């Protein structure tokens, strides 16, 4: 019941408010500032609308005795892009992880397709995220969105491995906040691509 209330609050109050008082105004504006504003508004709208809808569905399914898995876990507080995909639309991301990424990399490992398993892993990430984009529709910016997230995940992995040697990025709370900040903006830019706004200008 708590989830149904939260779903109602997210979807019918927060998402509507963001849409009516912020996103619609930013949508008609032009120039960099309006696009930036639209990017933030659209990101929050998407989250409240979709997380609200999911909470609704989960809440009602519990009433009927069905245990539907959680779908969102504070995604905008994710400390890196990998963490984000474990928190955003979890049921879909996990499906692509288990059925596309894992299958592909396992086949590559058993068949020794590549000298370095990491090559397979990176191709798997691009493949899984590219298909995830395509899953939303065949419009080109959905595919770009998927490939963009593939690139973010690969870039993050390359950076983490490089950072093990050079230790540029630290561990403290300030670094974690910086990580969440960078992640949120990388994700929000992805949503801007996803929204198709860039395609119209």
């Amino acid at each position, binding site marked *: 019941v708590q989830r149904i209330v939260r779903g109602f609050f997210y979807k019918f109050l927060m998402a509507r408010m963001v849409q009516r008082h912020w996103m619609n105004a930013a949508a008609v504006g032009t120039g960099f500032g309006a696009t930036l504003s639209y990017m933030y508004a659209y990101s929050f709208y998407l989250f409240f609308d979709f997380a609200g809808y999911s909470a609704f569905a989960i809440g009602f399914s519990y009433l009927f005795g069905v245990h539907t898995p959680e779908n969102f876990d504070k995604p905008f507080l994710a400390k890196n892009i*990998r963490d984000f995909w474990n928190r955003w639309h979890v049921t879909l991301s996990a499906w692509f*992880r*288990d*059925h596309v*990424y*894992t*299958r592909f*990399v*396992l086949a590559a*490992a*058993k068949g020794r397709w590549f000298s370095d*398993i*990491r090559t397979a*892993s990176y191709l798997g990430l691009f493949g899984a995220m590219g298909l995830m984009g395509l899953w939303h529709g065949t419009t080109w910016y959905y595919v770009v969105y998927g490939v963009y997230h593939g690139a973010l995940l690969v870039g993050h992995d390359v950076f983490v491995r490089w950072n093990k040697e050079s230790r540029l990025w630290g561990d403290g709370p300030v670094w974690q906040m910086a990580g969440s900040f960078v992640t949120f903006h990388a994700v929000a830019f992805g949503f801007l691509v996803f929204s198709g706004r860039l395609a119209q200008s």
Partner: protein
Amino acid sequence: MSSAERILAVLSRVAQTDEVKNHPHLRLYELAILDSLRTVELMAAFSAELDVEVSPAEFEREDWETPAKIVRYIENRLGSRT
């Protein structure tokens, strides 16, 4: 070597830490000792070395969240064969 020792030897090599042998209830995914890639490497290693095939379709992270659970899972698979 017992089957549990063989399973843990594979796990500690893939995870690149001996901690997994000493702490059976270590939260492997929460502590980022295992991730998607290492999970696949584990599946490949169990297939090659213990002849246990784990299909990505049947796999759930909850079944592998600690070393003890991995041992139980693989031992079950080994046991059901004979």
